[in-house]
């Protein structure tokens, strides 16, 4: 199953196979850094606004696809809010991976992570930052990067198939 997290409300991109999509339909709250998703309600965010089960949805996917406007090399605030609220996908304990400290797995699925960024005038520096962040995300999920691409607008993105 593909899990798509996007900031595009009116999402018109073709998707092959089974998928779930998280997009800005409901109001989302930002992560408050309480770690409740690890020590109060392990595996789920404590904020009950419809986005608390994203970590569980991630455990059911083989591909995680971020489709987002690029801001300074980061995904957009909405996509980042969803990601920040989904750290329950991983376990709070640390392990060593590639010589660095990362979080232990909670689930067994291996995520292939892709990011499709759009936006006018994305600089080379921003592209580099974005690629590094997606790689770091994949390392922390103990998955791998499948694809990172940049498009000047949503219109160009609509010509691809996910």
């Amino acid at each position, binding site marked *: 199953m593909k899990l798509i997290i996007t900031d595009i409300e009116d999402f018109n991109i073709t998707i092959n196979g089974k998928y779930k999509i998280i997009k800005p339909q409901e109001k989302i709250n*930002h*992560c*408050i*850094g309480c*770690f409740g998703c*690890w*020590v*109060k309600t*392990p*595996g*789920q965010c404590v904020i009950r606004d419809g986005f608390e*089960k994203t970590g*569980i949805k991630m*455990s059911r996917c083989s591909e995680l696809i971020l489709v987002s406007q690029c*801001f*300074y*090399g*980061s*995904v*957009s*605030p*909405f996509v*980042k*809010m969803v*990601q*920040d609220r989904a*750290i329950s996908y991983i*376990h*709070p*304990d*640390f392990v060593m991976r590639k010589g*660095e*400290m*990362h979080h232990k797995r*909670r*689930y067994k699925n291996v995520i292939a992570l892709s990011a499709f960024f759009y936006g006018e005038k994305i*600089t080379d*520096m*921003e592209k*580099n*930052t974005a690629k*590094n*962040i997606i790689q*770091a*995300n994949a390392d*922390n999920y103990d998955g791998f990067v499948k694809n990172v691409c940049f498009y000047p607008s949503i219109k160009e993105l609509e010509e691809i198939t996910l």
Partner: protein
Amino acid sequence: MKIALIDGSPKINNSASSILLEELKYFFAQGKVELIEMGLHTLVVSEEIVKQLKRADIWIFALPLYVDGIPSHLLSCFIQIENRINDICKKYTKNVYSIVNCGFYEGEQTEPALHILENWCCKAQLNWCGGVGVGGGGSLSMLPKMPNGQGPKAPIDKMLKHFVEKIIKQEIQKNQYVSVGMPRFMYQLCAQIGWRQLIRKNGGKIKDLGRKF
């Protein structure tokens, strides 16, 4: 010289960011500067914050690493500030520094977040002057109070002292990284003990830490 100390953590109290800003204040106290303290804890940049940002010559952001980037609420604030930058200041008249802390041991893991700040400065026509990445940030609020320069915070204090000297001279600092002063295995062990204590305190069982759905 007016310096804004901006707490970018979503936590209002006792965050690693606020502790690091307190350390900075200690070192600034030895120089002739006016410190303006403010917090960006929510999604909205208030008029009061805009007013304070206008007053300051230098902006120092302290923030935690969230999912390899900056917290979503702060990203939203940065977009708002960029959109209003012409009301706030003239092009390239504000110097921006940052301290990013992370729960991982290696301060180097904050590098992408520092790059986001640099890219934001480019877009908003601010002077990016560099930052410090602090590893082991999760332990800062747990450590007992000790005199500055002593105990596990000593390497961080040393780095921040040097950082403040650079800021006062308005010099550019190449991004630098530091870890809390304890061996990595010990930090890892302390973190594991900490999570187990917290889940028990919340009425849960240790095995619940690994709960699957």
